[in-house]
């Protein structure tokens, strides 16, 4: 690939990166939306056995399946059922979002567990109701504790989003694939794609660090909660 080829290819790759980011924002955002209530619920350890079973099933199904198999199950599996039509983007958002929700539920549950029990006792003794204790005492601390884990979640989902090309979403990976077929220069193309992914990972993580720094409470333990998963692409 000549430098001019490269320059003309760049806008298309950047458009792909935009799509990738859209997938990540939808999936991680949806993950927070579902994962936070689920995390609170499993932290409270509901007495209902059925509810606990459902939480367990959700966790096993969405964390135990490989992302690729989950995506195929939703796009090809659900999509093949009569009366269900699902767009590639919706399938990817659903698969990655639900998966992220399951991971984030674990993350929030352990973050809530990091707030010392005596604080809950003190709040209850001062007359705060249980929901108020949750909203004013537990969550403000737990959310801060979970920020590093969320950064990790962002980078994991970003990397998983490369799977979207298998169902035909035109994001960074598929733009790279088209480009490599057009130029027949797989080496440069995929190195370029890798560099863009790397940049997105680093940028996102720095952004989360910035938020973490901005929202920190002086004196509140800087104990960083461990993140939710090691490798992406699982």
């Amino acid at each position, binding site marked *: 690939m000549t430098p001019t080829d490269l320059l003309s290819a760049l806008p298309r790759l950047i458009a792909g990166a935009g799509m990738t980011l859209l997938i990540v924002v939808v999936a991680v955002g949806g993950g927070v939306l579902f994962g936070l209530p689920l995390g609170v619920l499993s932290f409270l350890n509901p007495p209902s056995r059925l509810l606990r079973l459902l939480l367990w099933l959700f966790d*096993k199904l969405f964390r135990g399946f490989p992302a690729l198999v989950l995506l195929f199950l939703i796009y090809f599996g659900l999509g093949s059922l009569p009366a269900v039509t699902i767009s590639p983007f919706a399938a990817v958002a659903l698969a990655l979002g639900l998966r992220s929700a399951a991971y984030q539920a674990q993350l929030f549950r352990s973050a809530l567990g990091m707030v010392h029990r005596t604080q809950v006792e003190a709040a209850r003794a001062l007359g705060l109701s249980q929901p108020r204790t949750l909203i004013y005492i537990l969550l403000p601390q737990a959310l801060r504790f979970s920020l590093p884990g969320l950064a990790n979640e962002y980078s994991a989902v970003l990397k998983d989003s490369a799977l979207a090309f298998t169902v035909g979403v035109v994001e960074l990976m598929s733009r790279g694939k088209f480009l490599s077929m057009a130029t027949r220069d797989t080496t440069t193309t995929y190195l370029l794609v890798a560099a863009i992914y790397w940049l997105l990972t680093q940028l996102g993580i720095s952004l989360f660090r910035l938020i973490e720094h901005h929202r920190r409470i002086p004196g509140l333990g800087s104990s960083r909660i461990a993140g939710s998963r090691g490798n992406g692409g699982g």
Partner: protein
Amino acid sequence: MGFFIEMLPELARGLLITLKLIACSAPLGLMIGFAVAAARSYGPRPLRAAARAYQSALRGVPLLVQLFLLYYALPRLGIVLSPFAAAVCGFSLCGGAYHSEYIRSALQSIPTAQMEAARALGMRRSRAVWHVILPQAARCSIGGCGNEIVSLVKYSSLAYLVTLVDLTGAGKLIAYRSFRFFETFLIVGLIYLALVALTSAGFRLVERRANPNHDSDPQRSWRCRTVAALAPSVPMARPGKDTN
């Protein structure tokens, strides 16, 4: 029901490939992980920088892109890998980067006084690392590395995208032939789930065996728990014993 019995042999063949992939990649990944962790902890400065760059590059880029580089880009440079070899290389190189973080934080959790004592007794640094530091650090990194191998079970499904007919690939072939997408992928997913459950149960057992007095030795149990917190940049390990 007949459909499931019919597809069983084909799935079993795919499963065998998946198991082979895991069996080859997991030990290789651990070895790379240890080498990189040792380079980052004890190496001279340029080696440390190289190890850092390795970790950052392999953890910042999707595994899929790495596999495509290995399988589609390397042939242009004259290196042709079979799908199986490309998958094993990709999994162990990428897994090694993650393992190295767990191993490194475990290495650093051992008090430096131990290294000083070993040196004072006349051990070479490499000997001290191998005989004094590593046996303790290895016990602490079982949790993190075990988690990573559990995710290897799941991300081994990416091998299908470099044309290897593993469990996922077999599932896809069956689904396309029979048009029963939902059932097939559900079965495939459940097989992966069973593998994940088995692997994580196995590692929990190993962890308990390797740390027999884990709870009665407060210092060590504290150290192992802080290993996760020590892991820099993106923290990775979970605090509890729960695996994927």
